[in-house]
């Protein structure tokens, strides 16, 4: 991860908990286009819902989550269209501590797609290094539901994933999901040696002296 990284605006208000450690968590969103990845990312980061254009490139958003004895700074990566290129997804989710596998409960094919994604993910990841969360989005569209809660839950159970149905539109389950992810990431990975790296608000010094060896978690 980049070393000389500084916080998003929301971090500046975060003076109350100065004494606590802040750990960085890379969270990536995966899933077919149109399932609501960008909408979820916006909910996570700003608790807003907006109808926006399809994602261009990758979007980087942040959100700080306070747990009892640690503060997590979630660095959320949301991309466009990468579903077409499974071969390159490792670039994007390399180094991620949390992966959200999103499908749209009103579109069965996105649920099927999610399982293809999962296969890819499983090839890439060492078990225990990433928290994988299956998210059935657009929970507000229950009347058009094509994937039952049970199906989602049983896929998650079979593959050892966490599962939540949520709605970026209504905001339902969003905060619960975010907190749950934070807890799991901290429990499963944070406790391991070097599992999460500490985030420091680095002063802006000598940008020209970039540490070439530092592995950048850029999605690109």
């Amino acid at each position, binding site marked *: 991860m980049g070393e000389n990284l500084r916080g998003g605006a929301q971090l500046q208000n975060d003076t109350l908990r100065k004494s606590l450690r802040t750990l960085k968590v890379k969270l990536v969103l995966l899933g077919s286009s149109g399932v609501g990845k960008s909408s979820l990312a916006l909910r996570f980061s700003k608790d807003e819902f907006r109808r926006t254009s399809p994602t261009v490139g*990758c979007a980087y958003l942040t959100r700080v989550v306070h747990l009892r004895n640690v503060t997590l700074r979630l660095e959320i990566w949301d991309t466009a269209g990468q579903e077409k290129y499974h071969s390159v997804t490792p670039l994007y989710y390399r180094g991620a501590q949390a992966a959200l596998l999103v499908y749209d409960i009103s579109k069965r094919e996105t649920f099927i797609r999610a399982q293809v994604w999962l296969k890819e993910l499983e090839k890439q990841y060492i078990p225990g290094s990433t928290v994988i969360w299956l998210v059935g989005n657009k929970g507000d569209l229950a009347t058009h539901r094509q994937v039952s809660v049970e199906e989602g839950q049983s896929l998650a159970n079979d593959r050892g994933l966490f599962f939540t149905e949520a709605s970026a539109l209504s905001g339902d389950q969003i905060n619960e999901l975010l907190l749950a992810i934070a807890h799991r990431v901290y429990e499963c990975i944070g406790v391991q040696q070097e599992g999460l790296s500490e985030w420091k608000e680095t002063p802006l010094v000598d940008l020209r002296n970039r540490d070439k060896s530092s592995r950048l978690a*850029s999605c690109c």
Partner: protein
Amino acid sequence: MERDNHQEGEAEGVRICDPPSESNPPADTLATSLSLLGNHMFPDPVERNDGTAVNKDESADSLPSDVTAEEESLDTEPHLNQVTKLDTEEEEETENSDCQDNVSTQLSDTGTEDAAIDNDQGDSGEFVVTMLAKAKLEEQGIGVKGRSSPLLEAGTPESPAFMSHRDEDVTADSWRQHRKHVFVLSEAGKPIYSRYGSEEALSSTMGVMMALVSFVQSGDNIIRSVYSEKHTVVFLQKGPLVLVCVSSSRQSERQLRGELLYVYYQIISMLTQASISRIFEHKKNYDLRRLLAGSEKILDGLLNLVDSDPSFLLEAVHCLPLASSLRDSLSQILQKAITPNLVFSILIARNQLLTIVQEKTVIEDTRLEPADVHLLLNLIGASSAFQAGEIWTPICLPLFNPDCYFYAYISYLDPPECTVCLLLLSTDKEAFYAVADCKRKIEEAMVAQNSLSLIAKVQSYSVSQVGVSDLRHFMYKPFDVPDNYRQLTQFTSPEMEAPYGSEEEKMRLLDLYRYMHSRIHSTSRPLKLIYHVAERETLLAWVTSKFELYTCFSPLVTKACAITAITKLLRWIKKEEDRLFIRYPPKYSTTPNPSKSSRGGKSDQQDSTDNGFLSLL
């Protein structure tokens, strides 16, 4: 105008089809045969025929843009003479707004004849093309009326359409009545993009176009354009892509082709030329929509901008007028926030340039082309995706280098309003965090200097500030002069105010400008100066070696008044130059030799073949 890349592109097209016939494009041949469809055309040779009236008067050049008041008053005389001369030599156009119709009607008959004489090759071939087109259309049952193609027979457009119409019923009259259709298809005839209606619904129409194109290609010829009474159809082939425009806008073929080229470039900016070629080499009938999915809005936005923003016509960038002290301070902020491999730092407000800082060696190598800036501005303006978070995306600047990517960091500085946007371009795909740091630095400096609230107060200017009563609007584009050599080509123009406040009236004025522009830049008979009396206004267009100027006056202005007004206008522009233009685009130095790596160095060429970036689009 002579150096512009669009012309180069065009020239290329000419070369491909028929090298010796620059003055006699193959289109003539084809158009002749297509007149079997009941269409007319008015090719260039006709204009040449009445060439006795061609005015080659160069005296206009004698008035430099930076003359002092005294010099100007001297120069006004010869200039006036010239206008008078133009009058007597048929340039007086006391016409109503449908003057173009008159012109085309007058010319079309002779034109057809002329072309038939000039082109003796492949008559039968073209006849077959025509038959083929008809046959296809009939077969597919698209309302064929008599002998014409449904596209050419579309009704008169009512008003320009500004919305995306992806779900439109392509069999409805309203679909045909759009002012300007644009289609993109692959050489194999696969639909890639349609401005209105889904490409799928239009695949048969595209099939017809493709049949035309491929048939004529096989005869070592290329369709360039087809004219009917109401429509102009322009074809442009670029690599494996075929672009088609069906327009009732009365623009010249050359203007329409330029617009198609912008569409092509915008596609290139997302995928690169190299990867498009590679994809189609591997798979001739590849469905490029797979890669462009989600980007239709960007092409829609481009076409709307092309119709409504004269930047594209003038091939120049419009910057927001700004006190030079503020612009300088913004530039300095950008200059100080650098990281290795950063090559351009661009600050945009309300989709206009505030300032642009460039890497020194990159810009020694080449200039930043206005078209590349237009594509960037359109990308940002057309998509709301940039309003959430910080964006990192590969982007190609086709005129800078069509085969490799830059990596763009895009972030608004004033959320949630999202009017001031920062765009940082790097050659390093891994530089996200370093570039994002530059943004924080810029943000901090701008807070310290209160820049955002100063920018918020900035407004475009009103023509009334010029203080010339009959002047309603103008567009002024200075050419390269020694002290801005290699700089971004810019133009300045006031807000369009009453009577051009409504969308319809704006478009009408722009159409008049487009008409003047096509006359000034006519390949067969370029003009230096046109005085055009239209029904509701009087226009004067003037091109010299120093500038290109389009002015719009109230209808009853006399020529003498117009000339005096222009003299005053030029003086005013000279006085306001520092505010109206980015005078000395600032530079920084971030890297030993970024120009090499970003312009076709081996390693970066490979970038374009890396699916990783494609995947992001």
